[in-house]
């Protein structure tokens, strides 16, 4: 087992564990903590896959912005920040559905041959050329998504006068 694989395993186990913990802990603020670690862990995997720009982006957008956004969400909707979420019974059916999905995906995909060879010739410049040249329409579309989100979300959240 190569060093890359070993590192990947470690990071993968952390990702799975923190992802599960984020959803299972009763204290919502702890959830934010775990999901923050989860995001950072994924950033590490990006670095491992030799996609450092994405790793940085992951750290900035997810571990930074999204986590803070979620924390704000909790703060605004709770009277006391450190209060426990009401216990919710977990039915057998949802767990079964999730597990079966997992088994299905693993069963169908786990045996695939081949492996990825991280790109040797990597530069942020070539990535940006790609993004702003041939794949510029993606960015334009993303801009439209954000425009709609901006206009609508502001309207929805604002304490508007009737």
């Amino acid at each position, binding site marked *: 087992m190569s060093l890359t694989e070993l590192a990947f395993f470690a990071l993968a186990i952390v990702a799975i564990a923190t992802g599960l913990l984020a959803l299972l802990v009763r204290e919502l603020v702890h959830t934010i903590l775990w999901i923050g670690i989860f995001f950072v862990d994924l950033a590490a995997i990006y670095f491992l896959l030799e996609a450092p720009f994405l790793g940085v982006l992951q750290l900035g957008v997810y571990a930074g912005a999204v986590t803070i956004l979620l924390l704000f969400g909790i703060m605004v909707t709770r009277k006391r920040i450190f209060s426990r979420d009401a216990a919710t019974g977990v039915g057998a059916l949802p767990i079964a559905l999730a597990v079966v999905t997992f088994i299905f*995906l693993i069963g*169908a*995909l786990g045996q*695939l*041959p*081949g492996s990825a060879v991280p790109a040797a010739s990597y530069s942020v410049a070539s990535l940006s050329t790609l993004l702003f040249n*041939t*794949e510029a*329409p*993606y960015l334009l*579309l*993303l801009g*439209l*998504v954000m*425009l*709609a*989100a901006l*206009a*609508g*979300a502001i*309207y*929805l959240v604002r304490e*508007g006068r*009737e």
Partner: protein
Amino acid sequence: MSDLGAFTAFVGPFLPELLLLAGALVVFLLDVLEVRRVELNGGIAVAVTAVGLLLVLADLGVAPWAGLALIPAGQIDAVVTPSSAPLYAFTSLGLVFQLFFLISALLVSLGSMSRPSKERGGAVFFGLVLLATLGMMLVGVASDLLFLVLAIEVVSISTYLLVAYTRRDSRSVEAAMKFYIIGALSTVLSLFGVALLFGAFGTTNLYAIEGSAVGAPTLVLLGYGLLVAGLAFKVTLVPFHAWAVDVYDGAPHDVSAFLAGGTKKIGLFAFFLVFIGPILLARWGASFNPLGGPGVPIGPLLQVLLAVLAVVTMTVGNLLALQQKEIKRMLAYSSISQAGYMLIGITVATAPAIAGATLQIFAHVILTTGAFLVVAAVAALGIGARIDDWRGLGVRRPYLGVAFSFMLLGLAGIPLTVGFVSKFVLFGSAIQAEGYFVWLAIAGVLNSAASVFYYARVIKVMFLDTPDPTAPAPRPEAPGLAFQGMGYGRAAAIGLVAVLVVFFGIDPQPMLGLVQSAAQHFVLVGP
């Protein structure tokens, strides 16, 4: 100068889309400038969609003003080599769908133009409708999976917020919440599906995908399976449909019209784009069978899957529609079952079937948009949402009653309405395709025969039943509005639908010609 020429050549074909964007921005800008008049905002929306409609008609070359066409003739249905595969491409089928999307947006804008808006002159409403329409238009030109998903996302985000537009109404916000969660889950599924396909083919481009060989069939099949599930959310296929009923029910009526009549169709067009190609590519994965036994190609496998979904969807939708007591939920289930009919065309995937499904989609665009607009008009009159509350409506408000009857008859597929023509071509094409598709046609016919019952019941209630004398008198939302309390815009939109339903029911030939040539080109060169 030449730069300008090149720029015009690049931007020109997108003039309708740019108009929509400009319209949305102007509406938002006016809101910021505190110019808040619903007639103005609605007028802008109606104007840009109407101009867009005329331009698309010109591009299709079917209008007298075809000289205005902005897309060079050679670019429509151009044969694309996989190696140069672009992110977007103009197909005549896509343009026909753009036409449908614009019709739906135009009807909705017209229908809500004179609604007594309490919320800042409806600026956000019309702005989001225009943005959503823009997203729909871009779905119409997509030829790349990620482009498609992003364009759908433009529509989704706009419509999540549109559903919550009446933000003080807890039903509206609750509907938005459900819509958002199921929608975001579907986005996750579609994106994961696109990622798997990207892994299998090394590209997200539809032309390039169809030009490649299948290396890892399981990856491809799981990718397509995830895409089916993700897109089925928009198309409201059973069992991905449950959100739709609650959302159509809880959303503001005009938004329900837009959702059921308009945005649902982008999912169907996405099905066209994504699945027709693989279905027609018989050579793909010719020996696939994970559990051993004789191998089968991927195309027929997808067909079987879609066939099952189609039959389940139409049957379950109809059975549930039979039971509904509320008009909006009845229409919602009816819309779900109609999606099953349309899926037949995609399953069969011959040119006649594509033409039939496209016609059926056209019929459904105008009929459903119109029907929900009638619901909106009736609600504005202060009449309740239960079918029983509509007793005697046809006698008291003949304009609404007659128009709604036309729409219901059209949905039921009664002759002399556009719904009959579309079902005839659709089911007929399935029979022509022979094999098990005949059973799809039979299932469709039986279902539409059964559906007549719940459509006819509403007509009977409106015209033959007398209103409950103990019910409180209706309290119109805005008593002063012209034209039986509807306002000119809404009355015009409803009247327009009723006229179109009958016009294309009696003389469907122009529509048939358009759809036939589009379907033909789609089969020959489409992605």
